[in-house]
């Protein structure tokens, strides 16, 4: 019994310690982003790695989600005779929740895990120590461009996810289920409001981008220098970034709804 209490106590202290670590690391990232040298070449490379390489999964998933939303939405709305509003249903769901959250989760899986693995492998093969010995800060040179690249890619990918989702909804709603094309778009346009919906969505995607960038680079940076460590860093990054995204999703949704 005493052992259990001790274990709980130790884990709590350990977690607080970890939170402190990530907070300090986060402030270093912010500093390195704002302070020169700006490393645009590396940022472009990272935009490619996080953004361009995620396009395939984002666009296909977005379209697929659009298909499902239109189908499900139609099935429910048709009971109330409101099936012409399917455009609004697809749009609202995508813009408010599914767009930012699903994009964040997909990007975490694809780019977040890749980043954690890459940085972790660099730790294991002493590449980061090599940089230190050349008087180059690994946070400045390696992790910050990756974190920033991912954070900047996220809102763009989210917007594309949503657009592809709307298109998918159109294909199913109009093409398959016979909703009028004009009505699809007009119900969409009439229901979506910039401040209520789109702005909140953009805010979410920006925050999620920063969270995933922070966590995936942090897990890689603090990986144990062996292959087990790299693997733990990768899975840990995906799990922690996903959970953090979902928690922040609630917080932002609640706050955004309250005080516009």
């Amino acid at each position, binding site marked *: 019994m005493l052992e259990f209490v001790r274990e709980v106590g130790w884990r709590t202290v350990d977690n607080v310690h970890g939170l402190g670590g990530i907070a300090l690391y986060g402030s270093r990232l912010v500093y390195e982003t704002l302070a020169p040298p700006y490393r645009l070449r590396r940022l472009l490379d990272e935009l490619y790695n996080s953004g361009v390489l995620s396009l395939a999964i984002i666009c296909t998933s977005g379209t697929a989600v659009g298909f499902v939303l239109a189908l499900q939405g139609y099935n429910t709305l048709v009971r109330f005779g409101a099936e012409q509003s399917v455009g609004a249903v697809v749009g609202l769901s995508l813009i408010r929740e599914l767009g930012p959250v699903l994009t964040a989760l997909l990007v975490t899986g694809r780019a977040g895990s890749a980043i954690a693995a890459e940085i972790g492998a*660099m730790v294991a*093969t*002493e*590449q980061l*120590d*090599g*940089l*230190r*010995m*050349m*008087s*180059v*800060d690994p946070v400045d040179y390696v992790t910050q461009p990756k974190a920033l690249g991912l954070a900047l890619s996220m809102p763009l990918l989210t917007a594309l996810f949503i657009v592809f989702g709307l298109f998918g909804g159109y294909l199913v709603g109009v093409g398959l289920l016979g909703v009028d094309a004009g009505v699809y778009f007009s119900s969409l346009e009439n229901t979506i409001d910039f401040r209520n919906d789109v702005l909140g969505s953009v805010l979410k995607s920006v925050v999620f981008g920063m969270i995933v960038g922070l966590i995936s680079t942090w897990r890689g940076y603090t990986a144990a220098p062996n292959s087990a460590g790299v693997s733990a860093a990768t899975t840990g990054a995906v799990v922690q970034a996903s959970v953090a995204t979902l928690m922040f999703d609630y917080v932002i949704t609640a706050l955004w709804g309250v005080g516009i």
Partner: protein
Amino acid sequence: MAAEHARGGAHVDVISVRLAFGERRVFDGLSCRFSQSKVSVILGASGVGKSTLLRLLAGLIRPDYGDLWIGEQEISRLPERQLRKVRRRLGMMFQGGALLDAMTVFDNVALPLREHTQLSEKEIAERVHAQFEAVGLKRVDALLPGELSGGMKKRAALARAMITEPEILLIDEPFSGLDPLAVRLIEALLREVNHGKGLTMILTNHHIGSTMRLADEIVFLSDGAAITGTVKEIKESKDPRIQRFLVAAGTGPALEEAS
């Protein structure tokens, strides 16, 4: 302290260093010195702390207690920012090369120049190619580190360490994973670098043969302490630990003794 170490002409001084990783004591009052312009080899069985000592000298690990002197500068308690300045005087060759695998060999060797100097691309290219020649690498510019052989990786790592013209070269297991011919080649290269530039070189090695051929001084690590001597002194040493090591090395792989 400063006067004492300056007198011996020592370039790098380790004074009463203690280090433990959790329960495991690695060094318990370790003291040794490495003389200027000499090739010093840290010798010992696997796991005795050779690489750890090298990393202490590089400032990558901090000791729990004791002093580390690089020239006139004590580094064990230096904040990271100032440590970066001290590292300009050091060059380090890692066991696996530690080249960045996402960049070409050329970009890897050019990195220190691009980061810390204002040289033009043309001047950088000249220096990089001069280094390639000095270490015996040809036509590697566009290759990725993953495409190099073990020996070539070591040469590239040496080129990168040397390009900033350091005073002290730290080398972790330069001969690991090399065939006997490659070992001889790297030996010759290191000797040439030492004679040609008068660099202080500190190597870790568990390979007796190359140590005996290369070293001016040997620092033998055992039980968390060091025994220093010239090649002759170590060969003729009466210390049982050294004798055991030399004998074992003569007939097979060095004994593994976790301290």
